């Protein structure tokens, strides 16, 4: 791994952004605090997505299943053993009689995400393009279906509640930073470089001996583990979870965050996650009525989704490579952000 001053900035800029979000979270009122913590948790999910999608170029619809597994594992194992038999009578005895602390539950969430990704990835990473995307989508469908109906491993269609709410601004920040550093390390590793080479030109990469499937599997496993960790953070943030909270909507939203930020850079992943997440929270609050500096804003039910959809479409039409143009943070781009808007990016690919 080569780390130059330039790459320090590439790690430092997104890290600083995450720290800033966390600091703001600890300064604002309790009500708005959750919005900023959500941004950090979403950033963790999107960083996890980026490790695989950004480096391999294969779009995965399945990562939210690792988030779901992480969330349910961490949630289930931190609920007190006394209440478990009452709320979930059909649980396997082993799950019913054991509980772990906060940090072990997060480690467990990451382990489960990583192991499941490794096992599933072994056959799936042979696929590419849309076939791979649809296969990962099938994984999401199965995970959701099994979690919703198999009451031996969880609450089934009920809400998993009574989970300790340990994810505050600090834990969310630590989680997001761990994900960021691991993602950065992978980006600069040999495997990460080879995988990006394969993303740009699979034929040429194969011709010089890159074993694409193997590197995809490495990236898939790492990103599965990070997604699991993010799930753990999520369940400890909101204290309860249902299977539908970690299904299609979250899949679309996090993918949108990644692409709007700029899918080919880690900086883009963090910027997109923070920007879209805060916008989403702001708009949802506005549905219930919120005070913007000078006036009271209230939009009709569903209005937040409409505005979010339109803004997302506009962002992509005018900046097809994402807000960051898919480039890593550099002094030049940061100065440009402060001074003037960068030029509208031209898309690279042709039809």
């Amino acid at each position, binding site marked *: 791994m080569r780390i130059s001053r330039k790459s320090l900035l590439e790690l430092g800029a997104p890290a600083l952004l995450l720290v800033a979000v966390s600091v703001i979270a600890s300064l604002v009122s309790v009500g708005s605090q959750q919005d900023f913590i959500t941004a950090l948790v979403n950033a963790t999910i999107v960083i996890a997505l980026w490790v695989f999608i950004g480096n391999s*170029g294969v*779009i995965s619809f399945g990562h939210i299943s690792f988030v779901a597994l992480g969330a349910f594992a961490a949630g289930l194992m931190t609920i007190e053993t006394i209440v478990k038999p009452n709320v979930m009578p059909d649980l396997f005895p082993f799950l019913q009689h054991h509980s772990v602390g906060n940090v072990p539950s997060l480690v467990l969430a990451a382990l489960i995400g990583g192991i499941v990704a490794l096992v599933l990835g072994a056959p799936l990473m*042979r696929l590419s393009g*849309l076939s791979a995307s*649809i296969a990962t989508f099938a994984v999401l469908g*199965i995970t959701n279906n099994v979690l919703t109906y198999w009451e031996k491993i969880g609450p089934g269609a009920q809400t998993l509640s009574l989970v300790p709410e340990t994810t505050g601004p600090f834990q969310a920040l630590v989680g997001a930073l761990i994900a960021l550093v691991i993602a950065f390390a992978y980006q600069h590793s040999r495997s990460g470089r080879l995988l990006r080479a394969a993303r740009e030109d699979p034929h040429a990469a194969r011709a010089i001996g890159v074993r694409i499937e193997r590197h995809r599997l490495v990236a898939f496993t790492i990103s599965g583990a990070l997604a699991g960790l993010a799930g753990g953070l999520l369940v400890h943030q909101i204290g309860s979870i249902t299977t539908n909270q970690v299904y299609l909507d979250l899949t679309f939203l996090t993918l949108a965050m990644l692409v709007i930020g700029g899918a080919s850079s880690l900086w883009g992943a963090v910027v997109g996650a923070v920007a879209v997440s805060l916008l989403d929270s702001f708009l949802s609050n506005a549905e219930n009525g919120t005070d913007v500096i000078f006036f009271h804003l209230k939009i009709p039910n569903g209005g937040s989704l409409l505005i979010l*959809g339109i803004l997302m479409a506009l962002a992509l039409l005018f900046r*097809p*490579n994402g807000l960051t143009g898919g480039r890593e943070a550099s002094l030049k781009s940061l100065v440009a952000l402060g001074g003037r808007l960068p030029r509208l990016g031209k898309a*690279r690919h042709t039809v």
Partner: protein
Amino acid sequence: MTALQYIVDGIALGAVYALVAVGLALVFGVMRLVNFAHGELITAAAYTLYLTSSWPKVFACAISLLVAVGLALLMELVIFRRLRYATPATALVTTFAVAFALEAVWLIAFGPQGKSADVLSSLNRTATHGSLHIRWVTITMVGVGAVLLAGTGLLLNRTRIGLEMRAAAADFRAARLLGVRANRVIGTAFLLGGLFAGVVALLLTATQPLVTPTFGLQITILALVGVVVGGMDRLVSATLGGFAIGFVNSLLGDVLPSSQGVFLTSFLYLLVIVVLVLRPGGVFVPGGASARVERV
């Protein structure tokens, strides 16, 4: 006779899925765009049917079809025309965004509760032959599906615009160099896609008249899965894939014991994964077993 009953039901649902699949595959063929917003065309037509349910049926159906076609063309003109040179990921997520926004429009306009588009439910009457019970809607689905698919086949193989569309699907840039008008072929693809989405809405509301904001989403996602499993690069294989997933879905629903019924989705997707791993290029594509390295 139950086996025959299952098969007939399966064929009917397969025909509906095939129509969704053709719509998706036509657009993908000429633009390489996976259009998640396709389902919103179905929803739009279904809501139009609800709004016009007191009108004469022929008018109500015609208007619904027109709305679906109009919305499809509008989407192309306003949004997707600008995506022709975008990366596939950008294009895909933009179609999410469009679907998001339209879903929100339905939510604001019609509320989260379902609205009843009870126009064609008279088709639910049963025709009985021996122990075989066939609802008229089943017959209609199979008939309409067959006619439209055959019509598409004729259009693509016997007309100039069909030839141009096939050329564009094979190599868009070369086709343009040879004088194929991009806007015309892409517009035609969206027009046909919208028309089929409208027809699907008519057929679906006959069996389940309750229209919700996510009415068209579920069938579109599943049809898309079918299209990829079948083989997205060719219209015939994509359509067969759509048909197959509808057929298998209906069949699994009939044969799974009720205790396992809730896991239908899992069985279906497990099958999808197995098939994709074994034949990544598509089940219905000759030589599809050979792994492809393709653009993402």
